[in-house]
């Protein structure tokens, strides 16, 4: 607060009342400003205070915020009883002092209203600026810029939430270094002391709080490391949802420390900054997420386009499938196709590409095309998969793998040859209720030159079903994290004797969904069932 115009501050009517009351008691009172000039006096005061017939009894300095702004001089005629006169003078002096203090308090409120307006303007500018920024460093820089004028610090720092990384700093290098050295204990203390949103404290240069009326900010702190650093002011950047950093300011040594108004301003700025940092962090996640989702979506579109739209119709055979994509991970695909030169033969494929997004989708498209081509040119699924692997490993090394179960089914005879490359075993549910597990050897495709596959062979008789799945079925998890597992899967299959291909698919899909409950599917899930109809032989 600057030098006050004492005369203009005080309510003249109240002052006149006091002064005339003093005169009625035989006292002389004069109020002077800091320069000694008279502001007001009781009637006849000059004669008593300045003339030979009176004596000065007391001088009371009026101080506001430690600065002398004036003086109250009291006196009485020489013949007055001095003990009574002194106590009366004391009372009158105290009364006038109260009037002055009251006047100053009103002025302070008026000033703070003006400060509030400035603060509002500053905050609305800051909010508008920060609204478009998502980079935390840039947010921090704007925050330091915005407080530099109203708070005129020598140096300032903004830390991120771990208090270890400086997002932005301002001021001379040695002052910043000094502030940096002293900041962590200050921030730690502030954080421990005041769990309220956007909290703030101020610290005097000698480690004594500038505002003695706030005992909770008492600090026996580390003296700032730089001799250039005076009073410090710090705030935690906090929102209702968490802490996003802290800001520490310092004034130059020798200049006045921060005051309560400064503290409040920084608290408001801190809240804005915390909100901006929080929003920025969220927005960054959204932006990254969007790019990630876009790639996933493209990968998904490619993947879906590779799935058969309808199955070839083969007399005496039922084909059914289920495919359920997981939100993120998952690169399942399946296929059912007629072989080019053997229209009575079907190629069956169930596969799982490790990875996700576009690379996985491309590998999938590659693998699908290669399996088609290789299957058209050979009659052994093991040889087909080996050939596909050699091409993928030798020519397209992508760092991705694919597990495949591939079968060649002769629809006329029911002869099925199966090869497996790192894939889960395939099941055959016999018409009599036996469940056979087909588990021929073979490593996953894409890792090594020789996958060591060998085909196995079974005959599917009427009522028998070929059931291939991906590990999305067995690795399905319930809400409490339990795995669906192979045992439950096999037990379920054993109970599905006599059911059509579509019914088997429906039963497995339903059981897996029931088991999963509200849990998120973690991986793609694929099921392919090819069943020889019961009646197809009964007639013959």
């Amino acid at each position, binding site marked *: 607060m600057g030098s006050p115009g004492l005369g203009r501050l005080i309510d003249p009517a109240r002052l006149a009342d006091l002064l005339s009351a003093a005169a009625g008691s035989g006292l002389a009172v004069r109020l002077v400003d800091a320069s000694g000039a008279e502001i007001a006096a009781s009637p006849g005061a000059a004669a008593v205070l300045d003339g030979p017939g009176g004596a000065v009894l007391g001088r009371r300095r009026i101080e506001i915020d430690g600065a002398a702004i004036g003086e109250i001089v009291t006196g009485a005629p020489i013949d007055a009883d001095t003990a009574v006169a002194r106590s009366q003078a004391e009372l009158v002096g105290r009364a006038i002092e109260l009037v002055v203090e009251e006047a100053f308090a009103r002025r302070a409120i008026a000033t703070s209203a003006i400060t509030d307006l400035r603060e509002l303007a500053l905050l609305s500018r800051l909010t508008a600026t920060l609204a478009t920024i998502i980079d935390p460093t840039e947010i921090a820089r704007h925050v330091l810029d915005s407080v530099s004028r109203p708070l005129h610090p020598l140096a300032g720092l903004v830390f991120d939430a771990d208090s270890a990384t400086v997002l932005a700093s301002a001021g001379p290098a040695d002052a910043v270094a000094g502030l940096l050295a002293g900041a962590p204990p200050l921030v730690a203390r502030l954080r421990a002391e005041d769990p309220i949103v956007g909290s703030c404290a101020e610290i005097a240069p000698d480690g004594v709080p500038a505002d003695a009326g706030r005992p909770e900010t008492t600090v026996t702190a580390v003296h700032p490391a730089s001799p250039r650093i005076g009073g410090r002011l710090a705030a935690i950047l906090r929102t209702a949802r968490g802490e996003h950093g802290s800001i520490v300011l310092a004034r130059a040594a020798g200049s006045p420390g921060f005051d309560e108004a400064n503290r409040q301003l920084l608290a408001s700025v801190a809240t804005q900054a915390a909100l901006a940092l929080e929003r920025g962090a969220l927005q960054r996640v959204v932006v990254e997420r969007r790019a990630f989702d876009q*790639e996933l979506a493209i990968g998904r579109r490619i993947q879906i386009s590779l799935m058969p739209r309808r199955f070839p119709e083969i007399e005496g055979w039922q084909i059914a499938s289920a495919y359920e994509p997981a939100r*993120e*991970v998952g690169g399942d695909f399946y296929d059912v196709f007629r072989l080019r030169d053997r229209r009575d033969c079907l190629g069956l494929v169930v596969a*799982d590409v*490790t*990875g*996700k*997004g*576009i*690379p*996985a989708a*491309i*590998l999938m498209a590659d693998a699908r095309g290669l399996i088609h081509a290789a299957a058209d040119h050979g009659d052994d699924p093991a040889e087909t998969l080996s050939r596909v692997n050699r091409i993928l*490993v*030798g020519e*397209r*090394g*992508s*760092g*991705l*793998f694919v*597990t495949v179960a591939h079968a060649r089914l002769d629809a006329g005879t029911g002869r099925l040859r199966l090869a497996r*490359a*790192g*894939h*889960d*075993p395939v099941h055959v549910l016999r018409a009599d209720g036996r469940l056979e597990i087909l588990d021929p*050897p*073979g*490593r*996953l495709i894409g*890792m*090594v*030159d*020789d*996958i*060591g596959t060998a085909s196995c062979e079974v005959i599917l008789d009427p009522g028998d079903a070929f059931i291939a799945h991906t*590990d999305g079925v067995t*690795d399905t998890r319930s809400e409490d994290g339990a*795995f669906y597992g192979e045992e439950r899967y096999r037990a379920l299959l054993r109970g599905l004797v006599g059911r059509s291909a579509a019914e088997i698919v429906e039963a497995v899909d339903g059981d897996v969904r029931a088991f999963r409950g509200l849990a998120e599917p*973690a*991986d793609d899930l694929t099921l392919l069932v090819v069943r020889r109809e019961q009646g197809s032989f009964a007639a013959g």
Partner: protein
Amino acid sequence: MDITTDRPSPDVAVIGLTGELDGSNFEAVIEAGRIARNGGAQRIVLDLAGLTYMGSSGLVAIHSIALLLRGLEPTSPEDGWQAIHDLSSAPDTDVDAGLSLAGLPPSVERVLDRSGMLELFAVHPDRETAIAAATA
């Protein structure tokens, strides 16, 4: 999943995994392998005794560490288009280059067995046996 790395001797590192190894954390395992390799490890023991689950991403992690030990840079399935265009040097049948596996829980062993990877690496019943073999 927790990852710990021990160095029983200057050229051997033991990377211990506890919890569930899946698509969300397999890259951290590759990173642990990379750090061990850059720290001078010629042989790495992957102690999987603490795993309660391993998905197919675990296979990628194991294969990648084997490539790192051979001085090759594995391509990441997360690299986007780049992974398709950057042809890493072709893997070959000799994947086992100083990588051994220890303490396989049955579920993990099944995943490795299914994929055909089990026979590509030295497998030891426990960490101690694996370290003894690696330091021999």
